């Protein structure tokens, strides 16, 4: 489904964020990316839908080369890939409904959408998405009035509007408390299991990784240093853990991992 080969990203200031990263994602996976802060997780996820242009390497989505895609083609690829963010990235002053509808922009005719006019079917879809994350009551509120957990659910609804085949989630629960973290990841798991949406998610807490991942890859200083299955991550040793997270990392009993 997604095939990444020798992906390298060097930022204009010379920072090498990714070095020769290669892996593939199979349909229906819940693939978790782990790695220390600054290891390049966000960079990797953003390269996949070209929010960031990679320096070298290829990304293939269903056989088409994402890195070579021109704007129209790129938009067609992007609309099949939903994305949710650590900081939710909602338009805080727009209504919840408007934020959700924005997820449909890649499908609708551009001109009417500029004046917030959407086909009835899409409005119906937005309503269903809000229903799914339990936020129909909040539809008319401004996004900034919602709590963190609610905002992330709006983020999920927005991704749902794309009727995506894959969802990229960049530390979706890092700004939420553990209970909410399970709730949000629960939604993602449901989408993964019931709707067959492939999930590519970066996470920080080992217990969450062990609970939700079907496969894990680990990054360290931009290099892919770990590949493991669900079983592997359950059996993960301290040595392996240090290999990914660096010497200063401590594996706590709670399954949390010390961030730098």
């Amino acid at each position: 489904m997604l095939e990444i080969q020798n992906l390298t990203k060097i930022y204009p200031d010379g920072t090498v964020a990714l070095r020769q990263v290669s892996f593939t994602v199979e349909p229906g996976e819940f693939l978790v990316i782990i790695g220390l802060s600054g290891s390049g997780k966000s960079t990797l996820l953003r390269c996949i839908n070209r929010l960031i242009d990679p320096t070298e390497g290829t990304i293939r989505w269903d056989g088409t080369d994402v890195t070579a895609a021109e704007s129209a083609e790129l938009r067609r690829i992007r609309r099949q890939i939903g994305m949710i963010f650590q900081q939710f990235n909602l338009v805080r002053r727009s209504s919840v409904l408007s934020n959700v509808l924005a997820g449909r922009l890649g499908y609708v005719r551009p001109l009417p959408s500029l004046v917030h006019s959407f086909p009835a079917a899409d409005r119906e879809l937005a309503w269903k998405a809000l229903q799914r994350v339990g936020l129909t009551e909040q539809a008319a509120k401004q996004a900034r009035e919602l709590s963190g957990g609610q905002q992330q659910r709006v983020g999920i609804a927005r991704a749902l509007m794309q009727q995506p085949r894959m969802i990229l989630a960049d530390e979706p629960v890092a700004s939420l408390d553990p209970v909410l973290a399970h709730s949000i990841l629960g939604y993602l798991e449901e989408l993964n299991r019931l709707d067959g949406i492939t999930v590519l998610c970066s996470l920080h807490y080992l217990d969450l990784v062990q609970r939700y991942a079907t496969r894990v890859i680990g990054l360290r200083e931009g290099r892919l240093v770990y590949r493991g299955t669900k079983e592997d991550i359950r059996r993960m040793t301290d040595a392996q853990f240090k290999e990914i997270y660096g010497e200063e990392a401590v594996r706590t009993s709670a399954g949390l991992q010390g961030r730098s």
Partner: protein
Amino acid sequence: MAGRNKRNKQEAGRREPPPPLVRPAAAAVASLLVPGLGQILDRLVQRGLLLLGSVVTILAMLGWRISVLAHREPTAWAMLAKALARRPFFIGLILACLVGLWVWIVADAARLARPVRDSRGRPRRGGFGIFVLVLFTFFALGWQVSQVDPVRMVTEFPKALTPLGRVVWPWQAAVVRETVDRQASAEVQTPCTDNPPPPAVEKPGQPFLLADPTCGELSALDTAGTLLPGSTLTLTGRGFAPDSEVKLYWVDPLGNEFQLRQEGRYLSVQADGRGAFQTKVIMPYRLFPGNPGESSLHQVVARQIASLGRLRASEPLLLTIERMVETIFMGMMATLFGILFAIPVSFLAARNLMSGSWLTMGIYYAVRTIMNIIRAIEPLIWALIAVVWVGLGPFAGIIALTVHSVASLGKLYSEAIEGIDAGPIEAVEATGATRLQTIMYAVVPQMIAPFVSFSIYRWDINVRMSTIIGLVGGGGIGFLLVQYIRLLDYRAAGIAVWFIAVTVAVLDYVSAEIRAKFV
């Protein structure tokens, strides 16, 4: 680490103050010759320079004031004497301050040069009293230079009372009564002939006066000088202003008119609720050089004058309202133009948009610099320039306010653009939206609130400004105000001031309310 080091050093410094470089006597002499030199020699360079600068500045200021007060005197001493004679208190005070300061500086230099400590063993500390004296001297100078004169303010206060009273309560001048002049006349023949004049014809809606009979004898004096009353006429009037006074006049054939009297008092009657009245008058005594035997035509006139009409807005009130409307529109137009020009400018002045290349950064700095310069120049000064450009009138004011608005809105807008959150942009882009869609969904919603808020704020400022921009010919109410003040028409000026005050207060409230809704 760094903090700890610093503390260590301080503690060390506390234990061992650096030894003075010069002995107290030497420092004192140095400061006596050049104030502050002693301190400088003792390594207190900043303190020394500050004191030196203060003394030099005070000397220069004093010299300037003396030359202003006594510029005709030939020698410096004579000038000083003359200045002291003219302003003994002020010049004396400054001189005393100067001498005191100098002595203090010398003492200060000597004190600081001694390696002594206070009772707790702390090293020497700079005294700040000396700078209090410096400040005091400067304020004393400032008092004189800016011609502060509280005595005059109090003694001359009565002069301000009348204009002040008129400005504070100008409303007598805000209305005038219409003076309606309603009158009707009836002809009276004297002496009576066979064909007396016909009674007047009544026209509906118009005042009408009927004399009955229409001829008679005037009062006359007999040889003994006693008055022989003339004929009595019954006057019936209709169509006058209801419930108000009607005065009666007599007009002789030459056109001489006088008010009718009865027993020495002017005759006047009160029209009833329907504007009608009836009264009897005795035909007056008139020295009329008519041909004896011939009859002549006199007239009796009933007239209502004075302020019988409705209350009406006065000229100043109407003009003020007119100018106030003009002023508010000036502010609105200037804001509109300001917004229109400021939007493109703000993009050029937003660092995050312009940091792409050297060229764009160059444009960014150029735009920022120009905007800073424009903002530094007050709208009143821009108005002076604009008046030369497009002539007196509101358009000049609009230009001035627009120029200033573009610069200040441009800055505010560009800061709003710089403050945009990139997250939502990224998120909307990731859905496959086009550039335009991304702007409409992720950028515009973030911009609306600050744009509206800043624009309303600017509108507020512009209307406020446009009330005074007329002072220099930029149109609006200020233009009227300055004219009234020059004509010493304080009531009219007061009306203008009231309108300005109320408008600004209302605007303040409205703009705060609107902005509160958007934040």
